[in-house]
């Protein structure tokens, strides 16, 4: 054969060109147009959101839309392990810690008015608040309407960075988790590590279990932790980093943790609208996107199973989509009851909303959980969070 090829090279090349492997019926005549219509995933995402959120949010949607398409705001999660005087520096720049800010003012008014008209159940859930927030947890933001940016954080003399820049609304699930001293906590989908870091900043956790299904993401998470937390806090006795499939957790460690944070993968709305690469709305990832609600449900169920009776679970996403938020929680509560016989109670997050309503815009009238919606003046979010308590 080789000899033949050598002898009649031109002839064979022609034959090879003629015989195409695809059968005739499947051959497609190529278009001659110089420019094929292109549909970048960001535009597909926008179309998708326009149709679904337009109906869901109604008149609120235009202002959410413009905020999503404009530059986001950051919050600086202060690293309490750092030795530099970052705090004063940030205050000089004009930002403030929104967690401790106007703390007393709101709660003084709240307690007086609430105790009068309340059913016993509501009172129970209310009583947990004001949540005993750790004094170490500080997150700085620029005031409403201020569009100044943070400078990148600098390392101190031990190589630890002064603050971690993240969406300030991402702190809310950590605050809602209400970690107490001596708790064991599971972070089921931890990467890239902002929320995990916030949990570690509280310095209350006895044992923290960090998981993310992707190996590369856990290694990145590990790097983040090493550049923010001193080594003595990252020992095997108080920390475990794994990359298992989170949905199997219920079978591995049942009824173990006091607190479980289930921050599931979702159609990260802001990212999908701004970045074309690694976008979940690209044509090749349609299937993955369709399976998201199912995956989220499985993760939440696993998280519920991993919590011990009396433990609390916080479910959070960074999308506005009802299918990925309310529906998932509703189904999970239903399934947990039907299939696993686990009784769950939805914990009201109203006190949290009351406390932070000057910093974030919350979606009005959600019958389950709370949602931060982006707004140009306070361009944080979107973040959805819902808290469940496993009844003993």
């Amino acid at each position, binding site marked *: 054969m080789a000899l033949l090829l050598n002898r009649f090279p031109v002839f064979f090349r022609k034959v090879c060109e003629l015989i195409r492997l695809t059968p005739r019926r499947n051959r497609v005549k190529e278009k001659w147009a110089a420019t094929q219509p292109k549909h970048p995933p960001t535009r597909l995402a926008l179309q998708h959101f*326009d149709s679904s959120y*337009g109906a869901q949010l109604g008149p609120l*949607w*235009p*202002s959410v*839309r*413009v905020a999503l*398409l*404009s*530059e986001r705001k950051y919050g600086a999660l202060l690293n309490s392990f750092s030795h530099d005087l970052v705090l004063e520096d940030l205050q000089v720049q004009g930002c403030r810690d929104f967690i401790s800010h106007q703390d007393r003012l709101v709660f003084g008014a709240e307690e007086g008015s609430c105790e009068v008209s309340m059913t016993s159940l509501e009172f129970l859930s209310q009583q947990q608040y004001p949540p005993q927030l750790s004094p170490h947890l500080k997150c700085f933001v620029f005031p409403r*309407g201020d*569009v100044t940016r943070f400078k990148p954080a600098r390392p101190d003399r031990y190589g630890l960075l002064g603050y971690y820049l993240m969406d300030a609304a991402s702190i809310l699930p950590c605050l809602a988790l209400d970690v107490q001293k001596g708790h064991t906590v599971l972070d089921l989908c931890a990467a890239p590590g902002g929320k995990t870091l916030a949990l570690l900043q509280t310095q209350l956790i006895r044992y923290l279990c960090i998981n993310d299904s992707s190996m590369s993401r856990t290694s990145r998470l590990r790097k983040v932790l090493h550049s923010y937390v001193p080594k003595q806090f990252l020992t095997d006795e108080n920390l475990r980093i794994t990359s298992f499939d989170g949905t199997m957790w219920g079978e591995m460690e049942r009824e173990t943790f006091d607190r479980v944070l289930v921050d599931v993968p979702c159609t990260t709305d802001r990212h999908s609208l701004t970045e074309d690469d690694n976008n979940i709305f690209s044509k090749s990832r349609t299937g993955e996107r369709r399976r998201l609600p199912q995956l989220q449900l499985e993760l939440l169920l696993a998280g519920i199973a991993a919590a011990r009776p009396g433990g609390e679970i916080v479910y959070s996403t960074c999308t506005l989509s009802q299918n990925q938020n309310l529906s998932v929680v509703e189904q999970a509560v239903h399934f947990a009851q039907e299939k696993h016989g686990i009784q769950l109670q939805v914990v009201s997050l109203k006190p949290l909303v009351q406390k932070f309503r000057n910093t974030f815009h919350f979606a009005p009238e959600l019958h389950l959980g709370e949602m931060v919606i982006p*707004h*140009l*003046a306070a361009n944080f979010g979107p973040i959805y969070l819902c808290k469940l308590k496993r009844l003993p």
Partner: protein
Amino acid sequence: MNTEISFCALHDVQRTKRLSLSSLLEMGFTDSQARHICDSVFEIKKESSVKRVLSTLTVLFVLGLNPTSVQKMLDICPDLYIVKETLLQQRIDHLRKLGLVEGSLQRMVVHYPKILTVPVKSVKNVVQFLREKCLFTTQQVTDILRDTPAVVLEDLLQLEYKFQYVYFRMGVKQAEMVKFRLFRFTLDDVRCRHTFLERRGLYQTPDKKGQTTIINPKLGDILNVDQDTFVSSVARASAEEYDIFQKLLARECKEEELLQGRVEAYSDEDDDGDDEEEEEEEAKGRSGYEKRRKKK
């Protein structure tokens, strides 16, 4: 006649003042107006220009302007004092040739006297640019000049960018641009309002058939209203939002420019000698290519 007299007597400054004062009065200025003009002329202090003033004024009067409006023009644009009579006449004739009829020509000149200080050649350039690069009809160019004479002094590259932004991004045709006086507004203004609407989902770029899935607001509704009306009734937003949006967009644009390199950097190539430069480049490229071959 008046001008003759004053020309003869211009050697002595004192006499000039007196003479031109009286001649100004004869031309129809009131006493205070004449004094005012004299004062501004002597501020210029250039002997030759002082000589020209009366002839310049005569040209303006021949155009059919009354003393009050002439004085107003000179106040707005003192440079007019030092323009030569012949040049002035040329420029006016050129504007007439461009299709500005009596009445609108006078109104335009009074409103924007600076146009008489612009050389005929640069006006020609702008007109040619509007017709060839932006494909405005002759009538439309006349309308543009009448409504927004300031275009003659704008940077052509900026003008082109503004036109293309409105034409391609907003999908607005030339006729509407003229009708709603697009060139009165700065690019930043147009872009900010349009982007705000677009991001709120209230404006879409039409496809090649000119279709959109929503009804876009008219260009006039976007531009020819004050900011409060625009924000509240067209964009249906709060003033706070638009305020912040302006800040954000300004920063975005600045960063984009930094990223792409200034637009003006290309201006030299575009204006003239396009072909020559291209050829030169090619030659350079070729020589570079040959050098590399030799090394091999």
